[in-house]
């Protein structure tokens, strides 16, 4: 953690995440290679909230995994606060698309574990975890196991689990994807509230353009895969603090949405054809 920060001091104002000309390929079972992402470049400033939107299967998760250090790109560089990323990205917290809580731990233990493995005394870690559970509105759910929670509650626990470690970068992969519209709004507001209290660089992947515009400072559009690139980059000048449901009634929101959607629609159609509509 400390190393990346020190290295960053050298540069003027280093980006939290800087992806330069990333190409990421997978080896398939028949020994051919599949290029998921080609020459993708993206910078996220410290404290900036960037949403990444693209058709399903275009390589959004792949891009996040590269920023997390879980995947090594074939070519291109990943820089974290100005320093090249080696191994796992220790400054980042990652909220995964699929269920990632430890099913054998209670919510409280799930949230506390990030501190415990870093050497915080158990009781202290648990107290801190209880405070975080209260912050995400689950104060009385500490002794429940993940299977006893609703989808939205699990995502809240996941959020607390990641944020308790105070990561300098937050990577979120369609975190509210499986939730219903109501819950998504509540979660969006919760996220904005937590993020404004302690601003960090955020890479927020979503397939929902409205959600992207409502939450982010910048919206980035990825082309349909394979060999997906970044084809659009919009600054969202909407004022903060925002209320996710209300901002969608704003005229400025509508203008932005129309403009970005015009581009995204073509890509969605392409992606739909290429994946056989299987998404």
């Amino acid at each position, binding site marked *: 953690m400390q190393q990346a920060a020190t290295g960053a001091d050298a540069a003027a104002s280093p980006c939290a995440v800087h992806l330069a000309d990333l190409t990421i390929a997978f080896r398939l079972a028949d020994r051919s290679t599949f290029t998921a992402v080609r020459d993708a470049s993206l910078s996220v400033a410290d404290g900036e909230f960037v949403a990444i939107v693209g058709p399903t299967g275009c390589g959004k998760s792949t891009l996040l995994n590269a920023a997390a250090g879980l995947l090594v790109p074939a070519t291109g560089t990943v820089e974290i606060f100005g320093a090249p990323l080696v191994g796992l990205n220790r400054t980042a917290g*990652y909220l995964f698309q*699929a269920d*990632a809580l430890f*099913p054998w*731990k209670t919510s409280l233990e799930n949230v506390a574990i*990030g501190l415990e*493995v870093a050497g915080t005394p158990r009781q202290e870690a648990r107290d801190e975890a209880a405070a975080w559970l209260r912050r995400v509105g689950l104060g009385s759910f500490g002794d429940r196991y993940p*299977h006893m929670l609703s989808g939205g509650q699990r995502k809240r626990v996941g959020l607390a689990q990641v944020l308790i470690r105070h990561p300098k970068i937050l990577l979120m992969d369609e975190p509210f994807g499986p939730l219903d519209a109501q819950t998504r709004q509540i979660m969006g507001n919760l996220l904005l509230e937590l993020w404004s209290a302690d601003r960090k660089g955020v890479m927020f992947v979503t397939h929902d353009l409205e959600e992207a515009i409502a939450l982010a400072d910048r919206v980035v559009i990825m082309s349909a895969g394979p060999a997906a690139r970044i084809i659009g980059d919009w600054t969202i000048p909407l004022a903060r603090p925002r209320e996710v449901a209300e901002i969608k009634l704003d005229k400025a929101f509508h203008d932005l949405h129309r403009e970005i959607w015009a581009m995204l629609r073509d890509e969605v159609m392409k992606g739909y054809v290429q994946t056989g509509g299987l998404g």
Partner: protein
Amino acid sequence: MSRLTLLTLQILVAVVVIGLWQVLTSVPIFGTVLLPPFFFSRPLDVALRIVKWFADGTIWVHLWITLTESVLAFVIGSLGGGLVGFWFARKPLIAAVFDPYVKMINALPRVVLAPIFALWLGLGIWSKVALGVTLVFFVVFFNVYQGVKEVSPTVLANGRMLGMSERQLMRHVYWPSALSWMFSSLHTSVGFAVVGAVVGEYLGSAAGLGYLIQQAEGVFDVAGVFAGMVVLAAFVIVIDMLVSMVERRLLVWRPMAHDAHG
């Protein structure tokens, strides 16, 4: 169907079967007794024999011996199978080297090992424990191996991103997953421990439920054989109930099919 009706029907089955048995072995039908009591005994005789065993206390030593052997076989087999399973799953090279041998030994009907164990370890409890261990070991081994291999990649990646070292991943991710698989096979492995003990006793020993049955058989004491079987069945049911209790406690974190109904 309500619980009461179910219970009534279940008891009815036992009453009918035992009643038929009693009638067919004691009442002549068309001049002959269909099931000669010499070969089939009578429920009443069996019951009296069981009562006698408990009344004069001769059964306890046999129960105790079988229990000891089963518990030892279970503990040793589980520890061994768990550790080796875990080790193999984390070291694919070792697993690949030993794979054909593991398959070979596992394919072997374990009963054929009983004489060897009797030869090596004598007729005391340890030859029976050894037989049980060879059964329990493989059940636990395969389950722990599977448990480590089947850890969700997302949960694993999450552990890494939360800053876990390899050792912490072992403790917080691999082990719990392996244990959950092992616990889910608890009934099977406990059952095998008992099978190993009883079969071993049956093939050569001086005490235990298997010995009791074998002795009765040797003198054509069919009532004794049936009485031994009934006590053995009750013994297994009690152990199985204990296992269920332990399982419920250990696997609280796992969704149960009946969760939704409360």
